[in-house]
């Protein structure tokens, strides 16, 4: 099970069109990865994505409805490229039951909390448990403490985040979508941790 991006359509019977998620096959040099962001409303998931994809930060709140889809490709040092197909989900409670729709088949889940709000840290732990139970096997999990620029209002210590992540085999980082601190690092670190597809000689067909 080396090819993470071939997982989606195996686990769900969705319609896949010519330009669908399986349109450009991953190979060893060019990875396509489905990534999902989860976390309480207002922790900054959309801001993280927009900072990563468009290099922008808009402080006016735009509550996500359902889920937004964006993609961004990065090049790694070893000249491989990784195309992230990102599902930025809505943190509002009414959409919680829909989360499987978006995390199903995801190779990466980024679980975000706000370092100034312990409630959102609790919610993050809920998502970790749910993904451990129902997520793709071998999913790469990242725990992100966002709004690190608000250190004077910090209520979740770095240590708490780090400890929890370690216990659950997750990658941990604190970010600020506002200052762009650690945003690119987040995605680069994820890319490095991705399982690589097997060389072309072995199975390429899903």
């Amino acid at each position, binding site marked *: 099970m080396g090819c993470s991006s071939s997982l989606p359509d195996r686990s*769900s*019977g*969705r*319609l*896949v*069109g*010519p*330009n*669908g*998620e399986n349109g450009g096959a991953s190979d060893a040099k060019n990875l396509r990865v489905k990534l999902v962001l989860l976390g309480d*409303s207002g922790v900054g998931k*959309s801001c993280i994505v*927009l900072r990563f994809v468009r290099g922008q930060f808009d402080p*006016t709140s*735009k*509550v*996500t*409805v*359902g*889920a*937004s*889809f*964006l993609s961004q490709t990065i090049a790694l040092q070893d000249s491989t490229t990784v195309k992230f197909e990102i599902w*930025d989900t*809505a943190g*509002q*409670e*009414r*959409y919680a039951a*829909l989360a499987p*729709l978006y995390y199903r088949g995801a190779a990466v889940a980024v679980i975000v909390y706000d370092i100034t709000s312990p409630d959102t840290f609790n919610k993050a732990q809920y998502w970790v448990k749910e993904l451990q139970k129902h997520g793709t096997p071998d999913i790469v999990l990242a725990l992100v403490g966002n709004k690190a620029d608000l250190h004077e209002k910090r209520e979740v210590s770095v240590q708490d985040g780090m400890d929890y992540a370690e216990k659950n085999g997750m990658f941990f980082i604190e970010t600020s979508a506002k200052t762009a601190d650690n945003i690119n690092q987040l995605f680069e670190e994820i890319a490095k941790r991705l399982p690589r597809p097997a060389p072309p000689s072995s199975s390429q067909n899903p």
Partner: protein
Amino acid sequence: MTSETSPSVSGDEASDPKPSPEDQLASLALSETDGPASGSPRENNRHNEIESAEEEVQTNSAAPGLAVVENSGEAVRRGRIGGVLWARTNSEPEADGPESPSSSGYAGERGSSSASSAGSGIYEIAEVRDDEVVDGVSDSQAAWVPGKRHVDEDDASISWRKRKKHYFILSNSGKPIYSRHGDEHKLAGFSATLQAIISFVENGGDRVKLVRAGKHQVVFLVKGPIYLVCISCTEEPYESLRMQLELIYGQMLLILTKSVNRCFEKNPKFDMTPLLGGTDVVFSSLIHSFSWNPATFLHAYTCLPLAYATRQAAGAILQDVADSGVLFAILMCKHKVISLVGAQKASLHPDDILLLSNFVMASESFRTSESFSPICLPRYNPMAFLYAYVHYFDIDTYLMLLTTSSEAFYHLKDCRIRIEMVLLKSSVLSEIQRSMLDGGMRVEELPLDPLPRSGSFSPHLGQHTLPTDSPDGFRELYGGIGGPAGLWHFIYRSIFLDQYVSSEFSAPISSPRQQKRLYRAYQKLYASMHERGIGPHKTQFRRDENYVLLCWVTQDFELYAAFDPLADKALAIKTCNRVCQWVKDVENEIFLLGASPFSW
């Protein structure tokens, strides 16, 4: 099932060689004489000539002759106690018999004891200044700031009491769900008061519809475990306020579906506010549209004017997509439809279009990137979610693809890419931009003479302007303000198409305040034309200090027109006929014809 408009009218006519009463009424019209209608149908031009006056209502002041208090057509009792007027409505007239728990005198009795409890809550919403006009009028989105205002207020604040219009949603256990002004939770006490009134009357087997308290009307709508309340001193008709509550309820269903009722079955004290988190902007923009968007009372949608071929091109690609398993494909520019297509047998109600477009436009996140979200179309199926793919092509133009499959995102994304390619290639998107700049029909451009029927008016609808040396002398009479004969504005609603067209606002209806006043006047006119039990109003001519209002309803269309208050009646009537002719002449461009989902 879902569409209220049936295209069967012509079928009925065909089976009956004699003109039906509707036909005769349709042919009745206004004339220069004030007498009753002659009643003789004029077959040759019955749909585009107003000729004889059927009714004239003249009012000298703003005092409306309309005191709509109850759901007409149902058994009603009223009691006036201490200025509070109760309207009690039994759900079935015959239930007023022996087995009914209510007896005569019931309303007054209950009314009086409830009135005292209502008094503290309702009576004290005292004199109101026109402060709402400042924040709630303008048609331009720039002037209106979305989102809830005055969150710091509660029912003890003077400012809160002075708001002209309040809307509440609460549960039948009295838990606040939504409030237009102020924070829901701080208003818990007030909600409990409203709830007490509702359950008091409900327990007697009745439903509160309306309470009057001085200048205020309090309108109630009960939807299972959910109560909706409007408190208003705007003098809007009861029927209009009730329809607004229906739309607010529909908006809530669009977000949650009716299955939210089950939460209350499990736990009557269920707190629904978290389920509506982040949707304040959706409700406040809907409520704002109650003061500018005619779709909210006409129950019709409006189209962006486009050359026939352009709209056809858009419709063809949407149809293509619908054939590939998309339930509805809707292309819109702000609140105006460019084209829409439904899969076989699926029809879209104008109210669903209104609520869906309001939801999408008010939710800023849709503008950021393509989205996939569950939504419910309350008129289509209030129980089930559909999935909406939403994508903005430019700042105003957006595509909505609806499906029943939660797995269809990538398919819909492909559909969008195909649609976008076609729209770009056939320059539909640039035509849309141009139409936005050009605007729609202008009263100043009302053609003088009948135009060739097949003519196309591209590039712009207003090519045929009134010559300055108008032989009729309209211009001389009215100093060049507005259109001929003092015509200031009109709305034309095609009943068969479920669509309306509204002329652009121009001098002297140029300020937001004047536009809102005219809007309210139309709203009142609409309500009076559609009142049940008052007999079929087919025409109305009203003159007050603000306008001459002329309304003409046939089985095919409704025309609402506003004129200078000094307008000559005969000329006004003549002008209305010309407006109808004009609309017919350009219907290819202002309406979505043909592949309408309503005609399946």
